[in-house]
């Protein structure tokens, strides 16, 4: 229904005059550019997201792979269709839709019906991304909007289709089974409603819990369980300078800090390590909150953004209606980004007097 040509098209073509003249290219400096590109960044992120998926196949069974593939495929398809509809160049090769698909699948429970991500993809890609002007202008993280939409649409499936981890790598166990037969409770749910004692009854001693949770042997969303693999991927991205440490560190530190203060029965008795390992904090901190478009660019702003996410996560976990709050916390901080960008601007090199407002 948007058959109209974007009005900016004309401006653009006059702005970028790259002509070939006598076989020599004439364009404005600089004439060399760095080897980095959006594609390279995006596919690196995809690569970092693959190990948790492989693990989840062995922990939750083969259907997680199917859900993820459907999610990715529907996001890519939604991207192509949206761009065709809006008469824009189709850019599915840049990998951003693949990331959206992966991330959306990673934050839904492993026992949901296969077709669920398709609806989320339409919401995430068409409404949250392309209606708002495509990549660069999506105010909210599309994958999380997709998840919030699914959460609102299928509240039962999205909050109860948890599966207990397979210890024998029998990856076909859950295929085609009704969810109710095997569903279990996530650590955060147990923690919120029954306390640490019940958690230990279900998952073993505290040291077992730390070890299992760190490696990813626990009920949870498809891609969020393995703190270890996510940490590995995140450190790789930081090493490649695709993301900076500011957001992940401030998210994790603030989750740990606020949990320590408010997470226990009395003040200052919460268990920060458990809080960081038992939900989607790692996935959110390294792969969702760091999304370029929906996070600030200045370092101070990044720290504030991350700390806000951590605080809201703990608030939702302790006082809210859901056991886990990382996704909503990021969504709630996203619209603050344009304002943060306005407040924290790069430090100008000795600007002329009166030039700064």
């Amino acid at each position: 229904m948007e058959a109209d040509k974007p009005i900016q098209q004309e401006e653009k073509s006059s702005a970028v005059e790259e002509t070939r003249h006598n076989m020599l290219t004439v364009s404005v400096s600089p004439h060399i550019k760095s080897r980095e590109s959006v594609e390279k960044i995006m596919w690196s992120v995809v690569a970092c997201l693959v190990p948790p998926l492989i693990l989840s196949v062995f922990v939750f069974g083969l259907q997680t792979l199917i859900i993820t593939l459907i999610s990715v495929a529907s996001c890519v398809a939604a991207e192509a269709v949206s761009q065709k509809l809006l008469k824009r160049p189709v850019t599915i090769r840049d990998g951003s839709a693949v990331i959206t698909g992966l991330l959306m699948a990673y934050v839904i429970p492993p026992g949901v019906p296969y077709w669920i991500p398709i609806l989320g993809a339409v919401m995430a890609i068409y409404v949250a991304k392309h209606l708002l002007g495509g990549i660069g202008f999506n105010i909210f993280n599309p994958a999380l909007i997709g998840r919030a939409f699914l959460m609102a649409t299928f509240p039962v499936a999205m909050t109860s289709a948890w599966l207990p981890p397979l210890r024998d790598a029998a990856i076909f166990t859950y295929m085609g089974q009704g969810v109710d037969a095997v569903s279990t409770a996530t650590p955060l749910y147990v923690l919120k409603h029954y306390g640490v004692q019940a958690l230990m009854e279900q998952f073993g001693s505290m040291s077992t819990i730390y070890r299992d949770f760190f490696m990813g042997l626990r009920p949870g969303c498809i891609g969020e369980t393995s703190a270890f693999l996510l940490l590995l991927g995140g450190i790789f991205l930081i090493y490649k300078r695709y993301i900076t440490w500011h957001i992940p560190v401030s998210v994790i530190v603030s989750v740990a800090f606020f949990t320590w203060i408010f997470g226990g029965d009395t003040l200052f008795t919460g268990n920060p390590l458990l809080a960081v390992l038992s939900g989607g904090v790692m996935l959110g901190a390294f792969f969702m909150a760091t999304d370029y478009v929906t996070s600030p660019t200045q370092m101070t702003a990044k720290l504030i953004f991350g700390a806000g996410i951590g605080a809201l996560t703990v608030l939702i976990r302790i006082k809210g209606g859901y056991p886990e709050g990382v996704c909503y916390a990021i969504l709630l901080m996203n619209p603050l980004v344009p304002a943060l960008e306005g407040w924290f601007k790069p430090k100008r090199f000795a600007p002329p007097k009166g030039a700064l407002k």
Partner: protein
Amino acid sequence: MGNAHRPYLFPLLLLIAGLVLLAGCGSDHRFVKKTTFEDANAITIEFAGPVDASWATDKSNFTVYEKPDPDILLTIQDISLGPDQHRVTLTFQDDLNQDQPHVVTTTDIRSQGRSIGPAVLTVKKLYMGYLLSIFIGAMVISNFVFTKYLGLCVFFGTSQRKSTAVGMGITFTMVIVVSAMMAWFLYQFVLKPYRLDFLQIVVFIGLVSLSVQAVDTILRKVNPALFKAFGVYLVLVIANCIIIAVPLILADNEYNAFESLMLAAGAGLGFLIALFLMSSVRERLDLANVPPTFRGLPIAFVVAGLFALAFLGFSGMSIF
């Protein structure tokens, strides 16, 4: 009016506001020091002096209900009196919903053989916390715009530019605090006592027009610069349904003066926050390649929908 009055106008108004506030925070009963929730199913009343055991342990001397439902009386299972005869603990059959204030009505309190008169006591969980929860609740958690869907015409109309948004938000906060406090006063001391509740709407909307006019006049006289900046938004305030929703809510919930103030301030600041966020987002979207049929209002609605989706994260939240 004479110029001499001008400097006194503002302090005078503050004084009136202060008096109104003081009226709301009088003690429930002079003989009662404190009332608190104990455990999940008990209420403790601490008296200023020792009370008679025969009076205190008689269940028929106490009736308890949740403030919004005066018809449903809670069943008292057991009453115990502390050793110094100061503390009375009422234990109930079921757990109490401590998010709601409870009202304890007693017969004549008897202390050392003397009658001290009946008391109507309101039990609230952690009073400052309760106030804070009203404030934070109105401001963020159940934001009037994104979770109650009120005030939208003005919200969409004035969120195009950040400067406009901030101007509108500040003006609105000022007016809503003034009008809500006046509405509370009138409701508590005129409408309720004289059983004129049904005139709520007429009275409240009248009050709103009045306070818009009042703020207009005061600003114009006291601070012309501020008036120049915010005067244009005053007309719009009246078209904002939050301004009428807040008095209705505080009348419905029988809030006292402090609670009403918190609700009004929270609603005003919440509107300001919503406007500010929306305007900064819309300023960025102005630069975006939005499909032509969606430019302007439609895309603003879609974005507001995304906001509302994010605010679902607060659903089911109670702070204190």
